[in-house]
């Protein structure tokens, strides 16, 4: 008998249908991947299964769980199933855990609610569960609040709360999307080892995650279930067009074209740059420490790293948005210094920035024409209005948007269109350097490809240089000429893209590559390559900042900070750089 049998499930909001006649089964103990782009109805389906949809949603069809119908049942009836028989892990553990309640209490309530334990016994069970999900010193963490834990630890707590009642089915909705890639691998491993007989419905946009971990796949497109089958079969011979597209667009770290390095004419040089902040307690927090870097003409340089690596702080300092604490920046032979307001206009227009979230970066009360043309008012005040409109139209054309967009407001744009408007706004000043801070991170596959294509084309046509900040190595591989890897404010490795991906010399680079999921069931998923998480910037480790998480680490690493030195045509900061290749082979 199947555990869950969904038949003709539809979900509507007014006239719009977000889930359209979806039918599937989940058998006992199996793991199923539910994949699709944003807006395809994945999360709506999951919420529908548990009766957690907002009040204005209308759900039709049948959901049979262990033989009994649970669609459209009252909260009172469903509360016996929720958290006990079917539980759920959400995307962002910061939002999904109650910030005002100790984590032990949040777990204990699940036991109390379902009558599984009470009093001291419940406390003991909670502590045991926290220990199982890998929290150190669980007795103490029992009394911690969510904000006192790191992102990865919070998600472990979330998983603990979902599994403490030993449910039959666990629904995990993008459980690792908000986490760093090395932590993502740990969380996926944890889900797999802890679930035992619990069936898993893993919702994700990332085919790399389901490839090695789920037995079957459900592929969603625009509210419809378009393909279902064994994971290996779906990957080997996708039947539906949408599945084929998804697979073709999934970026891979192990194949695809790599751009060769460009000329070595330096456009921008960073020497010994440091950036620091003060936290709420006025403690100094060094976000970037002693970084040397050069950007060449017509080159795309990727800066990769996890949260706290300092990649965003570094470029903000280049732009003059935050001050450099030490070091200097040379741009086209001239020093680039001071806050952005004090810089010469010509210098300001030469460096332009594109942010991650286009919706947040575009003023909702301005039309595209004004958004894109605004900076011309400052930099080229002599232009007449028709001339300006012409320039805006031309700039929009380079990102593939026609004149019909001129009068639109941001809310009338899709995510990809909005990001292209943001790029057009940056390009209209014909900058020498375009800085993209996670500019494609929020975009789905097809849209992401469009945006990347625009960037490549503009670079070929104008010879502009790009600094491309990203946490996604697969995307970085496809767009950049060279890659710089940062960890905890330090530059740990810089190399041509081909060399970095084929023969990483820093153990951290290696770990990042190993942790990046490959959308191919034939490539066995690597178990988490690193323990723990990125340490706090307030008290960075001594010597090599990476040593507490590194398998090569010895006494020297603890005491002495490795300098960035030439190796293999790149530069690497590791005492063991000469050994790393041997061990991999």
């Amino acid at each position, binding site marked *: 008998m199947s555990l869950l049998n969904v038949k003709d499930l539809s979900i509507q909001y007014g006239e719009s249908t977000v889930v359209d006649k979806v039918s599937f089964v989940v058998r006992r103990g199996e793991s199923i991947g539910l994949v699709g782009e944003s807006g395809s109805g994945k999360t709506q389906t999951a919420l529908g299964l548990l009766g957690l949809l907002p009040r204005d949603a209308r759900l039709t069809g049948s959901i049979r769980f262990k033989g009994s119908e649970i669609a459209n049942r009252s909260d009172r009836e469903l509360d016996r199933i929720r958290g006990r028989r079917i539980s759920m892990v959400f995307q962002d553990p910061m*939002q999904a855990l109650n910030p005002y309640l100790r984590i032990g209490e949040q777990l204990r309530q699940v036991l109390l*609610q379902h009558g599984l334990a009470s009093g001291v016994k419940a406390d003991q069970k909670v502590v045991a569960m926290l220990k199982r999900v890998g929290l150190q010193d669980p007795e103490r963490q029992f009394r911690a*609040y969510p904000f006192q834990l790191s992102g990865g630890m919070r998600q472990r707590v979330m998983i603990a709360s979902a599994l403490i009642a030993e449910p039959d089915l666990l629904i995990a909705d993008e459980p690792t999307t908000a986490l760093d890639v090395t932590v993502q691998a740990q969380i996926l491993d944890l889900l797999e080892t802890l679930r035992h007989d619990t069936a898993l419905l893993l919702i994700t946009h990332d085919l790399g995650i389901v490839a090695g971990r789920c037995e079957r796949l459900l592929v969603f497109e625009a509210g419809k279930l378009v393909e279902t089958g064994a994971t290996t079969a779906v990957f080997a011979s996708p039947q539906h067009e949408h599945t084929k597209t998804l697979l073709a667009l999934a970026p891979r770290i192990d194949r695809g074209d790599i751009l060769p390095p460009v000329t070595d004419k330096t456009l921008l040089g960073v020497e010994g740059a440091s950036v620091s902040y003060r936290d709420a307690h006025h403690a100094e927090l060094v976000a970037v420490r002693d970084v040397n870097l050069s950007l060449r003409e017509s080159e795309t340089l990727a800066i990769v790293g996890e949260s706290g690596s300092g990649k965003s702080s570094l470029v903000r300092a280049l732009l003059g948005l935050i001050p450099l604490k030490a070091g200097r920046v040379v741009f086209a032979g001239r020093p680039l210094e001071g806050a952005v307001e004090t810089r010469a206009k010509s210098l300001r227009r030469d460096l332009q920035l594109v942010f991650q979230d286009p919706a947040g970066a575009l003023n909702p009360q301005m039309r595209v024409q004004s958004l894109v043309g605004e900076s011309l008012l400052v930099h080229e005040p002599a232009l007449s209005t028709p001339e300006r409109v012409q320039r805006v139209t031309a700039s929009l054309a380079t990102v593939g948007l026609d004149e019909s967009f001129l009068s639109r407001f941001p809310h009338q744009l899709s995510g990809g269109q909005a990001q292209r408007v943001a790029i057009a706004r940056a390009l209209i000043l014909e900058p020498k350097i375009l800085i993209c801070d996670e500019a494609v991170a929020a975009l789905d596959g097809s849209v992401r490809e469009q945006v990347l294509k625009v960037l490549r084309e503009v670079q070929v046509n104008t010879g502009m240089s790009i600094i491309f900040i990203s946490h996604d190595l697969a995307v970085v591989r496809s767009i950049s000429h060279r890659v710089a890897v940062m960890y905890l404010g330090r530059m740990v490795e810089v190399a041509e893209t081909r060399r970095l991906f084929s023969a990483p010399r820093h153990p951290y680079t290696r770990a990042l590559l190993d942790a990046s999921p490959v959308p191919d069931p034939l490539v066995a998923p690597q178990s988490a390559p690193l323990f723990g998480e990125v340490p706090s910037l307030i008290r960075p480790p001594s010597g090599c900042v990476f040593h507490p998480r590194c398998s090569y680490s010895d006494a020297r690493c603890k005491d002495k900070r490795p300098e960035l030195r030439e190796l293999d045509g790149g530069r690497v900061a590791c005492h063991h750089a000469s050994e790393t290749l041997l061990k991999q082979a």
Partner: protein
Amino acid sequence: MLRYALLRLLGAIPTLLLVIVLAFLMVHAAPGGPFDDARSPHPEVLAAIEATYHLDEPVVQQLGRYLGGLLRGDLGPSFRYPDYSVSELIGIGFPASLKLGVLAMSLAILVGVSAGTFAALRQGSMTDRVVMSFSMTGISIPVFVVAPVLVLLFAVKLHWLPAGWSGSAGVAKYIVPVVTLALPQIAYIARLTRASMIEVLSRDFIRTARAQGLGTRAIIRIHALKPAMLPVLSYMGPAIAAILTGSVVVEQVFGIPGLGASFVNGALNRDYTLVLGIVIFYAALIIALNLVVDLLYGVIDPQVRQR
């Protein structure tokens, strides 16, 4: 947290000092003296009285003398009741006012929070609309209108409750004054609670709690109530001030021998030291209670506690 509390306490001193000086100067600027009367005493007698109370000194010197007295906890003598000091008069009036204020505040929080939560859970329903229109009415009608209407209805027409204070015993005499005083606060707190409860109930962690099978009661009690109380808590400062000023009217209307009544009498009798003493006492009380409210934030929000 302790450091934070001490810092706040120190920060309150200049505020209080400013209030004292302003109040002192304003009372002095008021036309007429305490002993100006239809039956004006002989100029020599008046001079003697003024000398006794140091009223013949320059204002600055009087202020300095007054501040010196304050440091020793001495609010000076009453001009009208020479047998009593202002501190003694406050000691006599305050218990009744305190009882009234605490009861009104408790009633306002209890009813306001319950009604607001109830309305939030049934957002858009008939119940919600009834609670909200009742609140709007409660906020709009001033105390001096509500008080006589309630007396007229429950005491004069229905004879359920006593009309006045003196002569009637027990709890019954508290009901109408407390309700009168609490009514606008009930209304305001209900609206605040409803809005913040609706916001909190839409947060992701509430969805998590629902997915864990916690029923509505448990969700409200364990997960939602604390964070939903934050805006209500920040309203407590203004609410306390409103209850204090409201009590001045209510005590007068119902003839309750409290501090509010003393204040009004003091003003009418030109008993300036009494008026000044009560103003300073109330100011100190409001500042202290606001400090308590700030510290309560730490109890609710663990991130505030860390500071």
